[in-house]
């Protein structure tokens, strides 16, 4: 199972009482506000869930893995996510069997 925007919108429809249109727009706006803040160079701190931060990475040497040719990897800004202590603790104790299925 994978959680997607559709399930989140259903949840807002059922639990918050937004209509279907508003629920879909709210989920879209939620992620858009986070993208917008990060785009503007602002980090995003969602207590109890985690923080989205920006990292400026300098140019570094790279290689085309097929041809072995050296190509510089350009300087870039990337997003990193740091889970809150609460979220880390919540996922820490998941156990899987040898087939990769969750045991508890």
């Amino acid at each position: 199972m994978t959680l997607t925007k559709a399930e989140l919108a259903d949840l807002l429809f059922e639990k918050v009482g937004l209509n279907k249109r508003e629920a879909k727009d709210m989920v879209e706006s939620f992620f858009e506000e986070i993208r917008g803040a990060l785009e503007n160079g602002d980090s995003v701190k969602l207590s109890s869930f985690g923080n989205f931060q920006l990292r400026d990475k300098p140019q570094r040497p790279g290689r085309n893995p097929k041809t072995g040719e050296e190509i510089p990897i350009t300087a870039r800004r990337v997003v990193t996510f740091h889970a809150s202590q609460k979220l880390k603790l919540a996922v820490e104790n998941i156990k899987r069997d040898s087939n990769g299925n969750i045991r508890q």
Partner: protein
Amino acid sequence: MTKSELIDRLAARFPQLVAKDADFAVKMILDAMAAALARGERIEIRGFGSFALNYRPPRVGRNPKSGEKVQVAEKYVPHFKAGKELRERVDLSH
């Protein structure tokens, strides 16, 4: 931007809703995301990114104070991978 600022911005986007709805919606979304990960599920938000769990095998660690060896159990840690749109927008604004 903090959670309360996010709530304020969403409330401003939805003037037809009461402010409490934006507050409730944000908490509901974050709770659902945390609960999905706690069940071992993935989260995939197109244009934003995906959250999954990375496995950390058991290892022998050390108590940094006493230097004593301690067995650290296997565990899962949350991992986020930014989606294409987020990656490009963040980098372009650089």
